[in-house]
């Protein structure tokens, strides 16, 4: 698939004139057509070049190698129905809604203008907003395979994550049968997507937990400025870029012959809610902060180097420096694609912000990706003094939705597959 970004924006509307009897307002907005339909799905005052749509269809799901958007709304769901046909129908309904929303269109018959006695199909808060590079990515957790007689189809690579030293899991932020990752440059577009999918899912699935992320901490576009995490450091300097086809193939996408045919073209996602003790971090000297990471705070250059993208000399870093421990060269080449977001969820009730990193990592096999890396980090990382893993989930991310007749999870759930 190509992570299409930059296809002509269809904008958040369908180009259907309705009523108005030829009442032309003219192309009032800059470069854009103005149309307003009675069904209310589609109001876009300015079809500009920004806020474009990302193609929903492809060999891989969008939202993985796609250039990282600014905002996140992530939700984990539990399956409530034991009727497989009903669940499959919901996946098809979700797929259609996702197809529409990622294209900047409203769900179903739109947000207003329909039958007065019925609640509108779409909840409406994204009317008038651009597609904003919305991507929606679905995943299936280990517990999902206990349902619908799917035990035999659970990929070996989808292991339950072991307990790592120092973690303090909140069960209400852990696990889930399904997940949806919604990424967008506009937070309201991301929230709208999760909200509408949750609504379509009532009776079939229920929200287990959800997480908002306000700022990206990794990028898959190396030419762009590397974003910073809440500790003030550049994060993901050496991340896999969306254009690095070979590295994506090697480290991210499940290949043919990896053991689970229905996952070919998919990936595995580890989500970790990592609380940062930002108040104590902020009282730490600059020297120690830089020692902890193994990079300088301003430029992001590795210890002893001048530029951010200079090749790190790991031995120059402290033995417990984060970059040194996490670097592929220290881990037999292990590489994961990071896509995390910073979060703050109010306070912890002790006068401190409940803040941190919602870590999202994609990989070809969790057993050869996150698990060995986190074993090492949880044992030795100097950063552990300032962070704690408090939420966790792992999901099998199926391959992409190929075309308009395809649907999320087809390769897993279709009978003949």
């Amino acid at each position, binding site marked *: 698939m190509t992570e299409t970004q930059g296809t002509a924006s269809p904008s958040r509307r369908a180009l259907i004139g309705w009523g108005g009897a030829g009442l032309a307002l003219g192309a009032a907005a800059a470069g854009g057509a103005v149309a307003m339909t009675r069904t209310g799905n589609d109001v876009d005052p300015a079809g500009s070049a920004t806020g474009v749509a990302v193609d929903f269809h492809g060999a891989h799901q969008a939202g993985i190698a796609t250039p990282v958007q600014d905002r996140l709304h992530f939700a984990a769901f539990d399956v409530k129905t034991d009727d497989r046909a009903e669940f499959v129908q919901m996946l098809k309904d979700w797929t259609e809604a996702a197809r529409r929303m990622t294209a900047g269109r409203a769900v179903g018959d739109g947000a207003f203008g329909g039958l007065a006695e019925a609640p509108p199909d779409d909840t409406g808060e994204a009317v008038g907003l651009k597609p904003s590079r919305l991507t929606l990515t679905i995943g299936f957790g280990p517990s999902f395979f206990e349902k619908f007689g799917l035990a035999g189809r659970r990929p070996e690579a989808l292991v339950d994550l072991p307990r790592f030293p120092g973690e303090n899991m909140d069960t209400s932020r852990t696990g889930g049968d399904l997940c949806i990752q919604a990424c967008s440059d506009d937070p309201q577009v991301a929230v709208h997507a999760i909200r509408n999918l949750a609504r379509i899912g009532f009776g079939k699935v*229920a929200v287990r937990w959800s997480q908002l992320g306000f700022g990206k901490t990794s990028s898959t576009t190396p030419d762009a400025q590397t974003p910073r995490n809440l500790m003030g450091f550049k994060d993901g300097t050496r991340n896999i870029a969306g254009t690095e086809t070979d590295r994506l193939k090697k480290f991210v996408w499940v290949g043919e012959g990896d053991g689970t045919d229905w996952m070919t073209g998919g990936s595995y996602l580890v989500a970790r809610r990592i609380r940062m003790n930002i108040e104590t971090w902020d009282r730490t000297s600059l020297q120690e902060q830089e020692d902890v990471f193994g990079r300088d705070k301003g430029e992001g250059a590795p210890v002893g180097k001048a530029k951010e993208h200079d090749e790190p000399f790991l031995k120059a870093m402290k033995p417990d420096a984060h970059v040194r421990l996490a670097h592929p060269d220290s881990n037999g080449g292990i590489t994961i694609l990071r896509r995390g977001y910073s979060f703050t969820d109010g306070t912890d009730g002790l006068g401190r912000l409940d803040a941190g990193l919602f870590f999202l990592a994609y990989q070809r096999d969790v057993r050869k990706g996150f698990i060995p890396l986190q074993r090492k980090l949880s044992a030795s990382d100097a950063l552990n003094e300032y962070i704690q893993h408090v939420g966790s989930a792992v999901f099998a991310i199926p391959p992409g939705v190929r075309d308009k007749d395809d649907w999320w999870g087809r390769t897993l759930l279709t009978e003949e597959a």
Partner: protein
Amino acid sequence: MRAVRLTVTAAATVAALTAITACTAKSDAKDGDAIQVTAADSKCDTSAKSTPAGQVTLQIENKGSRATEVEILFPDDRIVSEKENIGPGTKYTLTAEVKAGSYEIACRPGMKGHGVRQKLTVTGGSAAERNPKLDKAVADYRQYAQDQADETLPRVETFAKAVKDGDLEAAKKAYATSRIGWERTEPVAESFGDIDPKVDTRADGLEQGQKWTGWHRLEKALWEDKKIGDEEKTLADQLVTDLKDWQQRVGKAEITPTSMANGAKELLDEVATGKVTGEEDRYSHTDLVDFKANVEGAQKAYELLKPVASTNDAALTTELDKQFAALNTLLDKYRTDPAQYDFVSYDKVTKDQRKELSDNVNALAEPLSKLAAAVVK
């Protein structure tokens, strides 16, 4: 029910760009039938004094200097349909389904006062075709609402007597069951506006200067303060008086198939916002009794509308049957005898159990929100 207003379809100003889209005329427009309403600061001119029943369209223009409000009113001033805040120099199209009868069109310059009125006679019945199945559903539901009120009064009198006897335990025992009939048909009672605040207001729902009366005031005395004083005895009498008022008025409530369907949904809303959270009966923790009664009332309205709804949308009624059954089965886990309203105290219901109840309420309420459309289409 709150939903005494009939169907309103506000046709938004619609504009389409010719360069991209083919412009088609509005196929179902009946412009010739529209009534022109010209509102000004001291007048309200209408282009017609009578119109056939069915969809009535008002094309309103405010030529006055102040924002105005235009309403179609029943003879008793109940609102059929309205549009507020029509600014000076602006136009608005108001559409409503209106049955045959006598009405008034009111323009209220400045959006207050009696306004300037014009008579409107809605003639015939050809457009407002009556569905005998729906007429029966409404009549049966009205009877149900009356029965609930009739059955509630003796229970409330038992409760009130216990309070007046100063018998704390007997009063606690009678509290939850005295509410069942009310909870089953609450949207009907709420449609009167003045009874609900007197009998069913919670401490947090009080307005500035409002005296706290009714069930929850007594609930607090019984469970939290654990004492009955003269004030409580007076309030017990007043509760009976206020509920007798309800009993007298239930039969005159405006009930339509749409308001029945919306009322069913509203009962689930009540469960979702008040009972699942444990806010409704925060002192007695008898929330599950109210919960069950809300579901029963919603189910009754649904069952009465089902003959029509199942014809229009069979998939919806199949889903509703399934979800009502699932929620009732779940609720039964919280009582030993399905014939008794002896539910587990809600403070004993765990967080995970509350989530399960909430998930099941969502599973039912979402399709239930589509019932009204299935009834009218």
